[in-house]
């Protein structure tokens, strides 16, 4: 089975890259976007990621806008929100996003990925 593709969106570029490295080491495909606009741009291209991991407060379109856009492309795409502002998460989205409060443990993210059913190779 082809490993899942994760789109990691965070304006903290170094953290996003390190997270991506760890996920790749664990057998996932990962794309990184460092602001909302580039995340949306990425979502207009194939292949569509199988899960969106996004920050909320970012320049050029925030995580809520990215989430809404992602759902417009794939109504079922699982979303994991990783944020310092958990109360700003859009809980009206359906299916509901999983909200993790920064700072997150890598293991917590792994567990969340398992919950939404994405698998590594």
């Amino acid at each position, binding site marked *: 089975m082809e490993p899942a593709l994760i789109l990691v969106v965070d304006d903290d570029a170094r953290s996003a890259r390190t997270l991506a490295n760890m996920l790749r080491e664990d057998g996932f495909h990962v794309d990184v976007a460092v602001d909302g606009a580039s995340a949306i741009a990425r979502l207009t291209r194939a292949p569509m990621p199988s899960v969106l991991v996004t920050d909320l407060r970012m320049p050029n379109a925030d995580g809520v806008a990215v989430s809404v856009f992602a759902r417009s492309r794939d109504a079922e795409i699982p979303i994991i929100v990783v944020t*310092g502002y958990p109360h700003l998460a859009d809980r009206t989205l359906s299916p509901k996003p999983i909200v993790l409060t920064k*700072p997150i443990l890598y293991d917590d993210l792994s567990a969340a990925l398992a919950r939404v059913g994405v698998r590594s190779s």
Partner: protein
Amino acid sequence: MDLQKRVAELRQYVDFGEADARCLADVRPLLAPDFARIAQEFYDKIREHEEAHAVFTGEEQIARLQRSMQVWLGRLLGGTYDAAYYAQTQHVGEVHVRIGLPQRYMFTAMSRIRLELVRLIVERAPDRAKATNAALHKALDIELAVMLESYHDAMASRVERRRALEQESGAIARADVAAIELTRELVVGVDDGGVIRLFNAGAEETTGYGREEMIGQKLVAALVADESRDAVEKVLADTKLNRFSVDGFVKTRAGKLRDVRWDVARTQIGNIHVFLIGHDYTEERALAELSRRSEKLAAVGTLAAGLAHEIRNPLNGAQLHVSYLERTLKRANASAEMLEAAGVIGDEIKRLAKLVTEFLDFARPNPIERKTTSLGALVERAAGLIEPEATQAHVKVIRDMPSKDIEADVDASKIEQVLLNLARNAVEAIAPVISNGGSGRVTLRLRRQPKAALIEIEDDGPGLQSENAPIFDAFFTTKPQGTGLGLAITHRIVTDHDGTIEVDSHAGHTVFRITLPLRGATENVS
């Protein structure tokens, strides 16, 4: 002097004793058949006198007064002259004032009654007429004296009332004058020499001085506080200014300063050359000050909360990189010391993260959302949640529940947070004792009180280090890893529920007591 003393003095003065009382009582049966006639004749006589008759409102009143007189005659010869007796006599005097009977008629009327009674006594009890009549004279004179006294008192208070009424009606004769007396604003008029000539009720109320004290005084010297004297004097002296405002402190009789904004108009009416309309804005200013301060505090709170949120981003970066570091170190078979060092960084980041979360809970509490909740279920749930940690620490969790469940309108998740927080504190307090071979118990107890539910979290740990420690204050902690916000948040949640929380602690026994009012529940019952 009270009535009893007054009468005792009068009786002693005319030498009215028990023998006199007996004399009068003895002749009463002989005279009683004539009481109605005496009263009838008495009022018939009054009808002949225009001025005396003028006081009556009609025949109904005369009939009533006539009956009263019969009763009075019976009392007069009743032989009992106690306080109740003279209270009635006193009342007669008051009635005379009420109906407007001039006093001269009281004396002349008494003269008529006296003559008739003397005549009857001589006729029907000739053998003891002398002693009986002497007693009658004394009794009647005391009657007159008491009535006169009460007439005078009643008249005096009536005159007082009339004077007050006249003053009032004089004042309301002109609506504009009334308005000046009604307003809470200070209205002061001064003459060309700066002497106060008008001083309204508002000015009296604000300053505490009466107009009788203030009229004739120099305005500035009498009312304006030193702090603003120069400014006020200067503008008042400038005759080119006809209409202006000036702020000045007014000093009150009590020595307090009031902030008053004066609207000043120069216009001559009578001997008044300058009118000053003052608005006391002391309270408004204090309120504005308070709201400015709380706005500032709120702004600082918002700033702090914003900062706390933003701290989470670098913490996240640090945390992820520590995870990455740990993973890499493990793969490289790094030493235990290096792995431990990385672990310490991770733990410190977690601690900071916890501090941020609790600070945000504290700085920006979510409003409580009340729902009717089973407190029994809530306590049970908290006990269940703490049990794994407790068991691990060899602490037994005991549930002490009431026979009947208690329902209250509370924010269940918030109260659960409170119970968990206290239970966790209890377990953590006992844990060190267990490791020394002791045993530990944490009891969660629920009880009903008349108007509240009582929840106790009890432990047999070592107790608080100091009884007076400010444990509910933010950032107070005795735990090496504590943020000092747990109990502050707990306190906040309980008080947000209009409840109370207190602690009772000594070595081996600590109990936190929470009461939550049963508003909704008690209303349903009643």
